[in-house]
């Protein structure tokens, strides 16, 4: 075990897989010699050579299109999209091609492609470096969407994603790359070093795709969250003194329905959190699943705290971000309902 921050864990996952599997290649903008704008691939080109870890033109559609061709050849590409906000030029290749290739070829061609992208706000990135587009990917048949919240899970899930024979979008909450940001933006950043999930095995291990994790057991209400919002939920529950059961979904599709059902049936209350815009956000799916399956166990309406349906504002970031104030209020209201 070594203490790693999330970037180091993500770097380590790629390192492990490049070492283990000669078919793994890593590509993306600025990821080669420089090691990535967030350093997630630092040192990998030097270690494995430019034939396996290389810079690409600024063309996300080309990155994913070429990755599909490489996967058709028999490689296992790991593509970095520098910010999730830049993924849209690749959308056609992801939606119409990678996600459906197994289906449309009746299993003859499979697409073991991992698309990594830093996502989410909290870094004063403005509207083009802060978005949370996970719902767009959750809506695609054939796609798996993963969002880790700790260094340990990030490494284990990324290895599982690279080993997966289907395409995976792997969103990395960039606000927690360096520490478990809990929404108290006015406080100094806590580094990962003091967090138990920063203890990361150096070698190969996986965290299963499609399995949630109960990060705090509780009896009063269930909080469904992923990414940065897991840490916000933990801090808000602590601050409000609510005995919340907090579930880190980790994978949003396929979502761990068993974990959700078990918890909501126990607590009778449910709060859904995400940074992304509200309308047709992944929270809407979670609310629908909870009411379909747990309706007769519910003691209060299922609530959502999300980003607002506006573009991500720069100067008003902390009014937009669903931080401890908004989550705390929702926790209190859910308990009063």
């Amino acid at each position: 075990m070594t203490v790693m921050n999330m970037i180091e864990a993500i770097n380590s996952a790629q390192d492990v897989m490049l070492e283990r599997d000669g078919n793994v290649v890593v590509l993306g903008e600025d990821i080669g010699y420089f090691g990535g704008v967030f350093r997630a691939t630092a040192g990998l080109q030097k270690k494995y050579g430019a034939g396996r870890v290389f810079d690409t033109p600024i063309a996300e559609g080309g990155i994913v299109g070429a990755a599909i061709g490489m996967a058709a050849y028999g490689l296992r590409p790991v593509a970095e999209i520098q910010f999730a906000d830049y993924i849209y030029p690749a959308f056609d290749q992801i939606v119409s091609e990678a996600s459906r290739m197994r289906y449309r070829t009746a299993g003859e061609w499979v697409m073991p492609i991992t698309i990594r992208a830093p996502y989410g706000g909290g870094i004063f990135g403005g509207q083009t470096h802060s978005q949370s587009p996970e719902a767009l990917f959750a809506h695609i048949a054939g796609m798996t969407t993963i969002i880790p919240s700790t260094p340990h899970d990030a490494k284990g899930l990324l290895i599982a994603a690279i080993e997966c024979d289907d395409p995976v979008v792997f969103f990395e909450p960039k606000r927690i790359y360096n520490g478990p940001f809990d929404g108290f933006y006015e406080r100094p950043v806590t580094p990962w070093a003091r967090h138990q999930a920063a203890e990361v095995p150096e070698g190969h291990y996986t965290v299963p795709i499609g399995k949630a994790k109960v990060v705090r057991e509780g009896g009063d209400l269930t909080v469904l969250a992923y990414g940065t919002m897991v840490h916000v939920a933990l801090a808000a529950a602590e601050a409000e003194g609510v005995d919340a059961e907090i579930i880190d979904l980790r994978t949003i599709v396929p979502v761990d329905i068993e974990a959700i059902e078990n918890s909501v049936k126990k607590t009778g209350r449910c709060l859904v959190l995400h940074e992304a815009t509200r309308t047709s956000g992944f929270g809407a799916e979670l609310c629908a699943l909870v009411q379909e399956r747990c309706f007769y166990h519910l003691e209060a309406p299922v609530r959502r705290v999300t980003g607002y349906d506006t573009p991500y504002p720069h100067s008003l970031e902390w009014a937009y971000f669903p931080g401890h104030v908004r989550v705390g209020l929702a926790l209190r209201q859910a308990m009063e309902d």
Partner: protein
Amino acid sequence: MSAKTERPNRPALSLHVPEPEARPGDEPDFSQISVPPAGSVPRPEIAAPAAETHPYVQGLIRVLDEDARAIGPWDPKLDLEALIRMLRDMAMVRVYDDRMYRAQRQGKTSFYMKSTGEEAVAVAAAHALDRDDMCFPTYRQQGLLVARDYPLVTMMCQVYSNRGDPLKGRQLPIMYSSKEYGFFSISGNLATQYPQAVGWAMGSAIKGDSRIAAGWIGDGATAEGDFHNALTFAAVYRAPVVLNIVNNQWAISTFSGIAGAELTTFAARAVGYGIPGLRVDGNDALAVYAATRWAADRARANLGPTLIELFTYRAEGHSTSDDPSVYRPREAAARWPLGDPVERLKAHLIGLGQWDEDRHGAMVDRLGQEVRAAQKEAEKMGTLGGGSLLDFPQDVASMFDDVYATTPWHLAEQRAQMIAELEAARK
């Protein structure tokens, strides 16, 4: 306030929207198309710098002259057996297309696309490539499968989406796929296959393989971002790939001018990427063969990609869903100045004294019998929409297979629900 009066001292701007030379009711007019004589474009050594090809991207590589003699530096000098085989494959594509088009009209399937007039583009390329080179085609290169001896019955089963369809009825007719035959799954989203072809070629280079890739795209789809993505990646990484643009003049009802053909050629796109560009008479099977071979040899020698424009004409509609006589003159195809690819290769063989109308007629008859026999076989496994609404050619539960390697809970649940609903409906 009108935009005109705001700055009266400046000329008013106007928008140019390209229009084809002739529309229905007009005489077909191909006078703007220049047809340089066969043999007029030099053939650089394969190791020549890309720039050596650039003076000729406005020219046209042609081997067969007006009398169907093979002349000039691009003459591939194929032996008789290869020529006859190429003619046979092109004729087969035409017979097959006619048969399947008719099957669609008879209600046996939902959709069909012919490649009439463009048979050389795919067939001659398949002959020039190695059997294990990987093709990323569009929906109009069925000739690749025919030239690689893909079973006709299986092709038809795909068109019928029936029990013999290797794609389990999941794809629109003609969107074939075969790993074994080096034919990548066809997409209806245009141009996506172009960067994929480049990626496959990059993979081959990364692994130190010797196989190359070839991609095809239509003139219309060169306007897509993926065309630019592919050319950029191919040029940057010097990927071993042959990138073909099938300029058949029409994108459904839109003429090539709307894709940018008024001001330059598609082959000229190569100049900006610094890669070789060849502009080829796409109705001249020998020229297509020679250009493909040149580009393939170049790619195989690690010298990188080539862009080839195949100048041809879509002689029929885009698909069974459109009537070309409502957007272009009915007689246009017959007046295409570069003629018909099958007729031209046939005339070449006759000119060599090795073929005649009788032998050709007998060959086409044999191909017809072969296709009809295959059709009979394929139809034993069903046709699309043959039965009642709830009588499907595939096991309905298979709808949920192959979405993922293993079926997740939500798909399993939806499958169970669908089966229950269908059972209820059948009662």
